[in-house]
């Protein structure tokens, strides 16, 4: 299985390549990708240099254009696709049908990967994307069990990539307007979930309160590990009880399922985290690279140190395990 690694900056990109990535994915510094955070992502010259760096070392570069084109501003996305193709991207990772049609029509030889944001969760959906746009690979939404995936790979004429480590969307990706409901900035259109512009950390005595827009997302006691102020990992009140209504602040970690995923016919494992620093990228990529070729018994030890760097300092195998539902 290939290891697909994140890069939010050229430095992180080089770290990922040096640490053993088979492919690195990244995006332009604008709304065309789903990690549109301040100070993050690539200019055209930076992407060009990075692709060159990767290619010299036999590593591929995937460019994520995985947001939905805002009506009236489609040109931004079309130009991003044109430039990514011209700069030599090995694959474009797309979510919007309109953009897929553009790329399939204008660049029929360009490898097209379906982003997790497209939410293709079953064989008929994937078949549709293969037939309509010539998709070569689909990144599966994090709502399927390993058994679901095994069944799926046998039914489709398309490679499958799954998330293996990092941030965990609790909701079906690309189908969530929670953040935009609270902030007015849309993950789908603006490429940012829980935008920093709307995040506040407030001290209330010993407690740290995190807020998104006008809403309290969590209150952390003095020694409690914290998480991102994302709605789906917030603590809420339902009836007379309160707690993590959707999911605890945890990260995804499917290292224990590596063999099952390989047997299920998965082509590539993806690491989430374009918003994380280069230290994190280097550490996670090299650990997972080792884990992939290690004996199952050795794997846990290899990735144990990663857990300390994870959201909430804990990990889960999420929807890959049926019990998560």
């Amino acid at each position, binding site marked *: 299985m290939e290891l697909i690694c994140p890069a939010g900056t050229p430095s992180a990109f080089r770290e990922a390549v040096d640490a053993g990535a088979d492919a690195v994915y990244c995006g332009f510094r604008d709304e065309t990708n789903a990690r549109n955070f301040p100070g993050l992502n690539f200019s055209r010259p930076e992407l060009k240099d990075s692709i060159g760096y990767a290619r010299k070392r036999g590593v591929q570069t995937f460019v994520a254009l995985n947001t939905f084109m805002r009506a009236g501003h489609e040109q931004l996305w079309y130009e991003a696709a044109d430039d990514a193709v011209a700069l030599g991207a090995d694959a474009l990772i797309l979510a919007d*049908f309109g953009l897929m*049609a553009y790329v399939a029509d204008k660049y029929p030889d360009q490898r097209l990967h379906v982003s997790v944001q497209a939410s293709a*969760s079953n*064989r008929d959906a994937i078949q549709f994307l293969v037939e309509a746009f010539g998709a070569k690979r689909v990144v599966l939404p994090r709502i399927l069990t390993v058994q679901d995936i095994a069944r799926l790979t046998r039914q489709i004429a398309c490679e499958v990539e799954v998330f293996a480590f990092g941030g965990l969307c609790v909701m079906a990706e690309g189908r969530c307007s929670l953040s935009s409901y609270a902030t*007015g900035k849309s993950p789908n259109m603006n490429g940012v979930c829980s935008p920093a512009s709307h995040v506040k950390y407030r001290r209330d005595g010993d407690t740290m309160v995190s807020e998104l827009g006008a809403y*309290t997302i969590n209150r952390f006691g003095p020694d409690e590990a914290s998480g991102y102020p994302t709605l789906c990992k917030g603590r809420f009140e339902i009836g007379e009880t*309160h707690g993590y*209504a959707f999911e605890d602040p945890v990260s995804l970690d499917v290292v224990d399922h590596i063999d099952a995923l390989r047997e299920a016919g998965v082509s590539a494992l993806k690491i989430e985290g374009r918003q994380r620093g280069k230290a994190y990228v280097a550490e996670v990529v090299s650990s997972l690279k080792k884990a992939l070729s290690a004996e199952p018994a050795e794997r846990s030890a290899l990735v144990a140190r990663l857990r300390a760097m994870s959201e909430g300092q804990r990990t889960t195998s999420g929807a890959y395990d049926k019990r998560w*539902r």
Partner: protein
Amino acid sequence: MTNAHTPALSLGPVYYLWDGPKWRDFYFRIADEAPVEHVTLGETVCSKRQHFTEPHIAEVVERLEAAGKKVTLSTLAMVTLERESRHVRDLIRDSAHPVEANDLSALGLIAGRAHSIGPLVNVYNAATARVLAARGANNICLPPELPMNSIEKIVASLPDLSFEVFAFGRMPLAISARCAHARSKGLTKDNCQFICGEEPDGLPLRTLDRQSFLVLNGVQTMSNSCVVLLGELQALSAAGIARVRLSPQDCDMVAVAAIYRAVLDGAMDDGEAIARLSDVYPGAVFSNGFYHQQEGAAWIARGRNAALGQG
């Protein structure tokens, strides 16, 4: 309203779990009394619930059609299991009625046949609408998240296609493989005991500072606020919107439809309509933020429409 073109009223599927008789009686009353032209129905949120309504679908459809309503059948929003795939395939193959596609599997299967696109499919621009139209879509209900300037641009680019806007109801904001509703009651999705049926209008979720925020509806998360686009109807008509969707809440939907009809016909101004709506759906918080390119939860009062509505 002075426009030559007046949009039709359309009733979306019931997103909540209502027991069979309640669901049936709701539609009987819609058939007999509600001034809506289109009705889309069928379980959309969770495949586990289908057996509650299935025994009643035939009689409901018959009653609605006898009353002159045009009926469309909704597909599931999230399809992961083989059983769910089969259900979508059977529905599309066997249905004598138009189908509303709410996920990508339905989109693939239905190509070449006239169909509708539901608000849970991501249509954010005209290029996407064009792809779908070329595959046979003849009506597209746009996602609730779209601002007016996107709506206008999309509709203007495809003047021959019918577009629908989500104009009343709690908004479907997210869907998950995990059932937060069951979890909140100590259950899991696989052993949920249909606990979501206890809240026919969703289970309120508040912040730790007790702010009303969301409601849980099985695997779906909805807004606590109820979208109300009444002051915006005139602009939507002028933009060429063909249908205005009302999404069923556990309130008097016949009265809701009558209010929207009256505003569309120019028989009631929107100020009065909003006041009446508060009586029909007591305790509901209204919002129209997405339309005005603000946070979805926001309520932009009428005075500011002129400035923001076209923004």
